[in-house]
């Protein structure tokens, strides 16, 4: 292969990004894997290489296993539901008609608020002495509900809260995708007497494939790194039932001063997330093939 030489100017232009990326992305990835093989506590000047001990210890760490299962469950639900509702709203709000812009904005705006700030609002709504309970007690003959104190209810509220912030993103991606579909397709379908469901199945859904790939991947990767929402809403509780992977890594790595073991957990998370993302992206991109 003939190697093309970069001129001095071009090299100087590319260099800052490359140096920063290598220092703050590539190096940390390498270090995380390396620390995983050590018994370092993060403070002392020396450490030993302990082999795969940290990596195998993860399999018997019931808290870590739980956080993997919970985060996967959470990510799958969030990915499916945000895309489902995002798609429904996009189809409903695609046509230009009166009020559509207002509806789009109302669904989109929650995305702009920081998950931390929004978390406090949801907590004020669903706490034991929160606003929803004050309301329920007033109008119904029941006692206040422990929304955030019961594991299943707390998970449900966390999912609703996350959807509230994510659906708008999917909706916008799908609206952009819908606008690339030529109106001729719909006209042809209408002439053939296709029902709306048939149009959806044979035109809308297949032609939205590139949007689906983007929206699914963004939702999945962002749900796998979820931290601020459960932190504020439930603090990982009740009894650790809403602890995500990020919770585990920090509790072990920073709070318990086990940087070696924390890094091994982080490496597992890195592997799981990367493999799943690559697999999802591969499967979804296959659906796009017919467009080319």
């Amino acid at each position, binding site marked *: 292969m003939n190697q093309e030489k970069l001129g001095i100017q071009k090299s100087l*232009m*590319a260099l800052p990004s490359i140096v920063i990326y290598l220092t703050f992305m590539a190096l940390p990835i390498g270090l*995380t894997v390396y620390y995983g093989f050590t018994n370092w506590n993060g403070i002392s000047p020396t450490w030993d290489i302990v082999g795969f001990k940290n990596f195998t210890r993860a399999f018997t760490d019931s808290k870590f296993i739980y956080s993997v299962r919970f985060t996967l469950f959470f990510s799958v639900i969030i990915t499916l539901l945000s895309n489902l509702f995002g798609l429904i709203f996009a189809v409903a709000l695609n046509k230009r008609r009166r009020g559509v812009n207002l509806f789009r904005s109302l669904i989109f705006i929650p995305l702009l608020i920081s998950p931390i700030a929004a978390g406090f609002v949801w907590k004020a709504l669903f706490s034991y002495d929160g606003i929803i309970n004050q309301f329920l007690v007033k109008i119904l003959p029941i006692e206040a509900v422990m929304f955030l104190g019961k594991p299943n209810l707390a998970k449900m509220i966390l999912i609703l809260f996350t959807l509230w912030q994510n659906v708008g993103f999917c909706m916008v991606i799908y*609206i952009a995708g819908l606008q690339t579909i030529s109106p001729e397709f719909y006209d042809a379908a209408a002439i053939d007497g296709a029902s709306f469901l048939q149009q959806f199945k044979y035109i809308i859904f297949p032609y939205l494939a590139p949007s689906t790939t983007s929206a699914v991947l963004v939702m999945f990767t962002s749900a796998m790194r979820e931290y601020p929402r459960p932190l504020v809403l439930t*603090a990982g509780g009740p009894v650790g039932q809403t602890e995500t992977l990020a919770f585990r890594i920090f509790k072990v790595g920073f709070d318990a001063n086990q940087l070696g073991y924390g890094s091994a957990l982080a490496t597992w998370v890195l592997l799981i997330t990367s493999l799943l993302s690559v697999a999802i992206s591969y499967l979804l991109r296959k659906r796009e093939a017919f467009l080319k």
Partner: protein
Amino acid sequence: MRKYRTLLYYIVMSLIGLLFFFPIYITTINAFKVKADIIRSPLGIKLSSLTLDNLKLYGFSPSFNIITAYFNTIVIVALSLIGIIILTSMLAYVMDRTTKNRWLKLFYLLMLAGLIIPPEAILLSIVQILKNLGLMFTFSGLILRNIGWYIPFSTFVFVGYVKTISKELDESAFLDGAGSFKIYMKIIFPLIKPASASVFIFCFLWVWNDFLNPLILLGDKIYTVTIGIYRAIGQYSTAWDQIFALVFLVSIPVLLMYLVMQKYFIAGLTAGAVKG
């Protein structure tokens, strides 16, 4: 029949819209009410009892000053964004206009990895690197991390746009004696404004709302809007008046920006997400 369907459509969409807007409505009106009023009627508005007291009391307390929080966040967002946009648009130009360099190809693959890894997985190591560079608990440390983190996303968005600019443009400039840097400055950068807008909007939102990285990398002394309210309110607070006032204060700049730039906002978001 058609009439009823239209009516049904508007009823359903209004209900959904109201549902999405409900938490924002609650926050906005209760930011201007005293605690007793919030508890008595969280939904109601009584104009005569609206007050700025909560905003003043909680926005300017000894432990949290909203002006400091805005200032710190704006410095971090602005410097991160300037770095990201300038550096990655240059990189994207070099990458797209250099097709046969194996180091650049290798770097391209390395960047793909950066798109899928979760930030929490490398944060422990970033702390160690910043400690060694003497940049832990500084603005610079966080800003450099932000730039590094968004390099893949932003470079891919820019490469998508640079591709659409005809190579003949820069070749003719080259024949006129312009160097690569001049071609980038005078021709490429002005033509990729939509990509810059896209990167700007995404990264603005992400950096402004980021919690994890500033929490760990800035330490106890410096706070951004998200860290500031997290510490001021605390995990077990039930001071609803404080919560609504502070959430209102930290969210208002982003909401105002959205209202002003609404058109660019959605266009920028979708262009970025579909190309990236």
